[in-house]
């Protein structure tokens, strides 16, 4: 067997040192040597060179060897006071062999001491760790960037969405787009404004789940009652609209509306309960206005709908010329006009016969 030669450690453990029996350094391996000025370690006591934190009351080589199975934590006494991990073993001539590593301070250490690939033993997984830290950081950055983009896209998509998520019907935004398009391309149609009656009491009595279910059932019924060219939109909590494309016969539309109301009045079972609703409908056609505008139609339909509502619910009202002069100036005026008339005992002009 070859005699122990401290040089053997240089390649195997480039962060090691060897002391004599008094704890004075007799050999320092190349990477550890690189952390201080040349010749810094030789001949000096390891108890001066390092502050031992665990085990913490060590002053002699024997103290160290007694605690050899304790994971050693220490730091350089002189700046930069890099944290180190260590293990010791009995060395030649009653001294110790101490192997050190940077542990978690590795990133700082590499920067501080300008370490290279070749400063680590080929068996040392430090390189793999550094590679992983760098590769994972890059991958994480990309993932965060992707998350940010997806989040942005989700918000944008929600803002641009044309679909009401509960019912799958078109939403208000979609309806506005369709109205704008039909106006630009001179498409004629009849618009029906629908307000569900007794919906609030369904919500209050059986809860929101029942309300949601009723809305979904209503949506299915309206879609099956209309044709592929027609539009059904949910424009508010319990407010819906149907746009009958290419049809301007309001008498037919009223018959259609009455059919819809009958259909919606069918009891809707939900978890052992029966939900009963009805609908008030207001109707106006594009050819009733020259020229028509989306605002005007929406306001008119809204007003005729409120007439149906005020007139006892569960009915449909078709707009007639002269029904309400202020209609086009906005729904509020219109409704207040009608309510005023009703309160004052007068017959509602808007009432359909």
């Amino acid at each position, binding site marked *: 067997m070859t005699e122990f030669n401290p040089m053997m450690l240089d390649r195997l453990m480039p962060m090691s040192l060897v002391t004599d029996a008094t704890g004075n350094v007799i050999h320092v391996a190349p990477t550890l040597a690189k952390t201080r000025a040349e010749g810094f370690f030789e001949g000096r006591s390891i108890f001066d060179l390092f502050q031992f934190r665990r085990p913490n009351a060590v002053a002699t080589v024997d103290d160290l060897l007694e605690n050899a199975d304790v994971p050693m934590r220490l730091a350089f006494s002189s700046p930069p006071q890099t944290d180190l991990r260590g293990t010791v073993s009995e060395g030649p001539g009653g001294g110790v062999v101490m192997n050190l590593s940077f542990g978690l301070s590795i990133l700082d250490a590499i*920067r501080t001491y300008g370490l290279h*690939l070749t400063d680590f033993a080929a068996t040392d997984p430090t390189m*793999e760790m550094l590679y992983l830290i760098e*590769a994972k950081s890059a991958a994480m950055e990309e*993932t965060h960037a*992707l998350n940010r983009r997806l989040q942005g896209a989700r918000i944008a998509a929600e803002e641009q969405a044309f679909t009401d998520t509960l019912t799958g019907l078109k939403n208000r935004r979609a309806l506005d787009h369709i109205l704008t398009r039909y106006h630009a391309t001179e498409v004629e149609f009849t618009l029906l404004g629908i307000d569900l009656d007794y919906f609030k009491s369904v919500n209050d009595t059986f809860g929101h789940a029942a309300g949601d279910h009723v809305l979904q059932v209503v949506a299915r019924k309206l879609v099956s009652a209309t044709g592929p060219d027609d539009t059904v939109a949910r424009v508010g909590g319990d407010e819906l609209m149907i746009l009958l494309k290419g049809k301007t016969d309001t008498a037919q539309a009223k018959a259609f509306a009455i059919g819809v109301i009958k259909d919606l009045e069918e009891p809707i079972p939900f978890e052992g309960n029966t939900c009963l609703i009805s609908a008030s409908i207001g109707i106006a056609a594009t050819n009733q206005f020259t020229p028509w505008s989306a605002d005007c139609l929406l306001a008119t339909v809204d007003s005729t709908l409120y007439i149906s509502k005020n007139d006892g619910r569960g009915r449909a009202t078709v707009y007639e010329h002269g029904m309400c002069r202020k209609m086009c100036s906005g729904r509020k005026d219109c409704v207040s006009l009608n309510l005023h008339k009703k309160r004052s005992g007068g017959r509602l002009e808007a009432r359909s016969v």
Partner: protein
Amino acid sequence: MHGLVNKSIQCFVRDTYGPEVWGKVAVCANVEHEGFEPMLTYEDQVTHDLLHAAQTALHKPMDVLLEDLGTYLVSHENVERLRRLLRFGGASFTDFLHSLEDLPERAKLAVPELDLPAMELRSLGDGQFKLVCSAEQSGFAHVMVGLLRTLADDYGALALLEYAGGADGREEVDIHVLDSGFSSGRTFSLAGEVEA
């Protein structure tokens, strides 16, 4: 194919030939102008279409295009990170060549979904090597030729690289390292400082 691959091709076209050319390639390949998300996976056909669109737009034979892509990957400042990660493979160009066999595993450590072709390095002695790449889609070895040629410079090594053909999902690259310390090369600092 992994989004990182598609994104690399996208960045190569954009950084080398400008955003207008990328715009044309994107239209031809039927991909959105914003391009690819590096952390998502796409159908292989997308990569195929993308490369053919680039080939048409740049009027280059496919092998030249792929070699240029390999060069770009380890030389352009926008993808400096990749060069750094590759340089972790070894302290010399020869060490690096031997690390190529680990490359698919290394890549998987960072991005588990990334499947790189398997590579085998045969040492023929006297600085001569044969790199055997196994990939379902051909062309990977051309990328490796461009990448290795540029990394040889990066390490300061003088090396000859040549595509040595291939068939049945296997492609070969002949490598001859003439002088591993030919020049000082580019620095590689573990700590990641910017080069002086």
